[in-house]
């Protein structure tokens, strides 16, 4: 079978039965999830349709600035999601995080689509945008975990950090354990994903390619590139952001300014 089977509208509605099952379960067991399931369903359908039309337009237009514009909007949305997850009021972290995400994700997406896959032009939207999307989606979660961990540990271990400062440590030495812990917390999920891929789960992208008729041996190559890309981009962005934010937790005299 090498032809894609199109899903017609009636077939799509048939899949809706699965949502009705979840609704029924929520109703019978009084889970209180009916409203959320409706909202989730409507958002899934509308957002994905919108994305489908937008991608059709973008792929057709093949415009460099439009492609880059979409990339910036994606990163911008990601920083808003991170802001929602990290409840930090004292230390401004959003702008350096945004700029780091923008540059590191751009370089990763560029490297993968242009150098590894070898697309021409380098910004070919059919490759560049999905690649960037995967990088942003994955690293965004890692960054949120790392940022949250850094701030919470810096507050929790405030006395230990000050003790080390008082013994002559510079701010990097005084917060080294916290820094390492925060970076590791962000990186572990993508490393764990490398352990389980192909054994515990078949990744969404690979499943999609196989369903679309791609030879599994080609699909796995793409998936390998994606897994490496996610680990690499997570490492680069997390370490860079942690360096910048950690410095912001200390003042000019390397005194800890993060209050309880």
């Amino acid at each position, binding site marked *: 079978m090498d032809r894609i089977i199109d899903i017609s509208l009636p077939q799509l509605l048939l899949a809706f039965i699965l949502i009705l099952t979840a609704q029924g379960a929520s109703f019978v067991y009084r889970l209180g999830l009916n409203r959320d399931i409706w909202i989730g369903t409507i958002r899934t359908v509308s957002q994905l349709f919108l994305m489908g039309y937008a991608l059709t337009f973008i792929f057709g237009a093949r415009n460099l600035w439009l492609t880059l514009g979409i990339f910036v909007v994606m990163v911008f949305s990601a920083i808003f999601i991170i802001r929602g997850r990290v409840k930090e009021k004292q230390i401004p972290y959003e702008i350096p995080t945004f700029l780091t995400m923008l540059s590191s994700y751009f370089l990763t997406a560029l490297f993968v689509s242009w150098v590894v896959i070898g697309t021409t032009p380098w910004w070919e939207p059919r490759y560049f945008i999905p690649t960037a999307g995967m990088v942003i989606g994955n690293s965004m979660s890692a960054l949120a975990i790392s940022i949250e961990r850094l701030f919470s540990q810096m507050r929790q271990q405030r*006395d230990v950090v000050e*003790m080390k400062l*008082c*013994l*002559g*440590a510079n701010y990097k030495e005084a917060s080294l354990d916290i820094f390492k812990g925060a970076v590791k917390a962000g990186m572990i999920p993508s490393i764990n994903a490398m352990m389980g891929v192909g054994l515990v789960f078949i990744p969404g992208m690979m499943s999609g390619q196989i369903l679309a008729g791609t030879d599994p041996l080609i699909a796995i190559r793409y998936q390998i590139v994606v897994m490496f890309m996610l680990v690499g981009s997570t490492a680069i962005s997390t370490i860079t952001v942690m360096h910048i934010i950690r410095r912001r937790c200390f003042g000019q005299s390397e005194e800890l300014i993060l209050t309880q």
Partner: protein
Amino acid sequence: MSLPETNMRSLLEISDISFGYDKGSKPVLEHLDLDVRRGECIVIKGPSGGGKSTLLRLVCRLNIPLSGTILFKGKNIADIAPPALRSAVSYVSQIPQMTDASVRESLLLPFSFETGKGKPAPSDKQLEQMLDDFYLHGTNLDHSALKLSVGQRQRLSIMRSILTGPEMLLLDEPTSALDTESANMVFSIIERLNTEEGKTLMIVTHSDFQPSVPKARNFILRNGTFEQA
């Protein structure tokens, strides 16, 4: 790093220092002056919230004053690299802080930092001798520092602070969390550090501690200013 000494008279000169946590609120310290000469033992007493601990934190730049200057050996502490300043003027906090490490690792921690790497680390034998001097007889260097009592940890943290040879020691309520026996041991160590080793000390306390050392000077800090002791 050893800092050059330009003023032989005062080791530390605090001039017209004011500090407040929030703009608009009443300052914690107001126009404070204090000169500390080498070898002195300055004891600052006063009620809680009077700014005693804050003063010590300003001297090692854990907090930054709103106005005024602090000179260490004639040099503005704002112009001294913070790690160099803090290894020369060592601050010991009220609650002794230890990491999850052995007694040996805890004591040698300052030697793992850039400022301590060039300094000769003491041998196990020297550490054991010092543990005896600090009333920590029989403490095994391989045991976890976290398993020691608060009093033992306080003595260990003072010992750790002097291992790299600071010129001045800032002790913030060193006995507030201790029972009488442990407190007396710490007082005895403080007196010995000043008289026998010539360490310049600044001690903040609200206990009745009165060190029997010849170079002691007493101050009372109330509502952010010094009162005659």
